[in-house]
C-alpha cells in the first residue's frame, strides 16, 4: 500500500508538472500566434541572429574533437552565435553550463549528456524558461520526452549489434568457445550501455561466444592499455577484443603487442567510431572490424535548430548515417578520411 501511495504521489506530481509545462508552452504559442507574429517569426529570425548554447562532453577522444569542430564550423557557416562549453566529462559542469545558457536566454540549447540519468531538473528549468533543447549524440533516460525537442545522433544499440553480427558471422562454424573481452566506455554513459547491450543481444544467438571479462576503460587510450594488460594477465586465452571506441582499442593494441601477441591475428579486435588513428590501425590489419559512428553532426544540428526556431515540426529521433569497415575497406577509405 505504502509504495502505491508513494507512486501515486510521484505520478500526480509528474502529471501536474507536465500539465503546467504544457500550459506554459501553449500559452507561449498562443501569444506568439495571436498577438504578435512578428515577435516570434519576424524579429527573432531576421533581425536578431540565433544564439545556440552547446555543452560538449569534453575532448576525450579524436571522435569528440571532430564532433566539436563540425559543430563550431557549421554554426559559423550558418551565421549563428555559438556559446560553446566543455564539461570535461563531468555532469555537474554540464548542468552548470545549461543553467548559464538559461540565464543568458539563448534561443536553443543543445548538449551531449555525459551520463544518461539525472537531467530532469535542469531540463524542466529550460522548459520553464521556454528554451527548446536538442540532444545530440547521446540520449537521456528521462521518462518525460516533452523535456526535449529531438534527439539527433547515432543509434548506439545498432552499433553494438553491427559489431556482434560481424563477430557471429566470423565464428559461425566455431566448435569451441570463443573468449571475448570487452573494454567498456565511461560507466553509465549511453554509448557504453547501448554498445554493450546491442552486442550482447546479438552474440547470445551463438552459445560459443562468451564475454569472459568486461571492464571500463573510460574511452581513453591510457586506461584501455592498463585494463587490457590486466586482462592479458588474468585470462590466458583471449580470442576477441571488443572495444567501445577506437582510442581504447589503440591502447589495448599496445598492451597486446607488449605481451608478444599480434593484434588482429592472435586476438581479433572489433572497435567502434572509425576515427583516423583507428582507421590507420585497421588498414594495417591491427583492428579487424570498425563500426562507424559519425561525428559530423554539425550541419544536421544547424538544420534542426533552424527548424525549431521557425516553429517547424521536427522528428523526435533523427539517426545519422553510418557504415562499417573491415581492414580492406579501411585501407581504401583512409585517404579521404576527414577526422
Amino acid at each position, binding site marked *: 500500500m505504502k509504495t502505491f501511495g508513494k507512486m501515486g504521489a510521484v505520478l500526480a506530481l509528474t502529471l501536474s508538472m507536465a500539465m503546467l509545462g504544457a500550459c506554459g508552452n501553449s500559452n507561449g504559442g498562443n501569444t506568439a500566434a495571436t498577438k504578435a507574429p512578428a515577435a516570434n517569426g519576424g524579429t527573432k529570425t531576421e533581425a536578431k541572429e540565433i544564439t545556440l548554447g552547446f555543452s560538449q562532453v*569534453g*575532448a*576525450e*577522444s*579524436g571522435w569528440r*574533437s571532430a564532433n*566539436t569542430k563540425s559543430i563550431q564550423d557549421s554554426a559559423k557557416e550558418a551565421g549563428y552565435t555559438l556559446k560553446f562549453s*566543455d564539461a*570535461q*566529462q563531468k555532469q555537474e559542469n554540464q548542468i552548470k553550463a545549461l543553467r548559464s545558457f538559461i540565464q543568458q536566454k539563448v534561443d536553443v540549447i543543445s548538449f551531449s549528456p555525459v551520463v544518461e540519468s539525472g537531467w530532469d531538473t535542469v531540463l524542466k528549468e529550460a522548459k520553464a524558461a521556454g528554451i527548446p533543447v536538442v540532444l545530440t549524440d547521446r540520449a537521456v533516460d528521462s521518462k518525460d520526452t516533452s523535456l526535449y525537442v529531438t534527439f539527433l545522433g547515432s543509434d548506439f544499440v545498432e552499433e553494438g549489434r553491427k559489431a556482434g553480427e560481424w563477430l557471429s558471422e566470423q565464428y559461425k562454424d566455431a566448435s569451441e568457445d570463443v573468449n571475448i573481452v570487452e573494454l*567498456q566506455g565511461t*560507466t*553509465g554513459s549511453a554509448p557504453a550501455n547501448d554498445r554493450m547491450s546491442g552486442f550482447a543481444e546479438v552474440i547470445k544467438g551463438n552459445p560459443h561466444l562468451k564475454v569472459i*571479462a*568486461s*571492464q*571500463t576503460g*573510460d574511452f*581513453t*587510450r*591510457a586506461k584501455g*592499455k*592498463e*585494463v587490457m*594488460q*590486466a*586482462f592479458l*594477465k*588474468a585470462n590466458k586465452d583471449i580470442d576477441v577484443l571488443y572495444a567501445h571506441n577506437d*582510442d581504447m582499442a*589503440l*591502447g589495448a593494441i*599496445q598492451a597486446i603487442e*607488449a*605481451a*608478444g601477441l599480434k593484434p588482429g591475428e592472435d586476438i581479433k579486435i572489433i572497435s567502434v567510431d572509425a576515427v583516423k*588513428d583507428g582507421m590507420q590501425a585497421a588498414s594495417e590489419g591491427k583492428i579487424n572490424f570498425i563500426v562507424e559512428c559519425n561525428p559530423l553532426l554539425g550541419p544536421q544540428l544547424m538544420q534542426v535548430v533552424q527548424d525549431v526556431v521557425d516553429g517547424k515540426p521536427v522528428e523526435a529521433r533523427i539517426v545519422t548515417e553510418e557504415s562499417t569497415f573491415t581492414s580492406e575497406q579501411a585501407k581504401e577509405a583512409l585517404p579521404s578520411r576527414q577526422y
Partner: protein
Amino acid sequence: MSPFMKHHLFWPLCVLAALLLFNLCYSPDFFSITIHDGHLYGSLIDILNFGAPLILVAIGMTLVVATKGIDLSVGSIVAISGAIACLRISSGADQNSMGLILGSVLLAVLLSLVLGAWNGLLVSGAGIQPIIATLILMVAGRGIAQLITGGQIITVTSSNYAYIGSGSLAALPFSIFVVALVLMIALLLTRRTALGLFIESVGCNPAASSMSGIRAHWVILSVYVFCGVCAGIAGLLLSSNVSSADGNNAGLWYELDAILAVVIGGTSLNGGRFYLTGTVIGALIIQTLTTTIYMIGVPPEITLVVKAFVVLAVCLIQSDAFRAAIAARWKSRHYPAEKEMGRHVS
C-alpha cells in the same frame, strides 16, 4: 609491541603484502614473471610500470605536504608537460631524432619547473593558502593543456619517445629507473643534507624557523618547484607510455591519488614530518589495488566503492587509536579479569 611493529613502514607494508597475497589466491600465477623479447613480463612489472608516474608525483607531493602545504595542480602539470612534449615531437620532421626528443623533454621539464615556481611564489611570496594557490593552476592548467593540444589527442609515432614510458633497460621498464633516480635525489637531498630538517621545521612552525635563520620562503618555493618537476616527468612517462597526449584526461585526479599515497605512507597532512619510502609504498598500494580490481573483474559500476572500502580499511589499520580500541575490545572480551585488574591499578 615490538620495535619492528612500531616502524612507520610496518603497516603500509602489511597492507601491500596482503593485497598481493589476495591476488595470488585469485590468480595463482600472479607472481610469475617471464621474459618476452628481452624484457620481463608479468603483473608485478605492470604495477611498477603503471605506478611509476604516480610514485613520482607522490614523491614531490610528500615534500610539499611536509611544509604543511598541498599541491592540487600536479594533475594539470602532468597534462601540460605531456602535451608540450608531444606537440613539439609531432611537429618535427624526423620524430625519431634524438636532438628533438631531448629538446622536447627538456622543454617539458623546464615548463613544469616554471609552473611549480608559480605555485611556490603564490604560496611563499604572496602568502596565499596553498590549497587555493594551487587550485588556480589545477583549473587553469587543464585549459592550458587543451590550448596546447588544440583540444585534440596528439599522437606521436616516435619509437624513441615511446621508450621513456614503455621501453625497457636491463629487462626492467625504463620508467622504474627514472623513478629510482628521482627518489635517490630526493632522499640524498633531504636526508644527507640539512634540507630535510629545514623542510620539517618550516612545516612545524614557519615563523620560528625564519627567526632561527632558515629562509622559509626559499624552502617553500623549492619544494613546490621540485613537486612541479616531478609532475612534469610523470607527465612525460604517461604520455610516452601511450605515445599520445590527451590534454583532458592525462593525470586526471592524480592530485587526489598522490595525496592518498602520501597519507598512506605515514606523512601527516599537518606537516613537519615526512617519509619518502612510505610514500612509495603508498603509491604502490594504490596501483596494486587498481590492478587487482581489473584482474578479479569487479563490475565497473562498483569499482569506486570497492576502492573506497579498501582505502578506509588501510587508514583504519594505520590509526593507532583505532588499533588500540580494537585491541582493548578483544582483550576485555577474552580476559575480562585482566582488564578489571588493570582498571584498579590505574
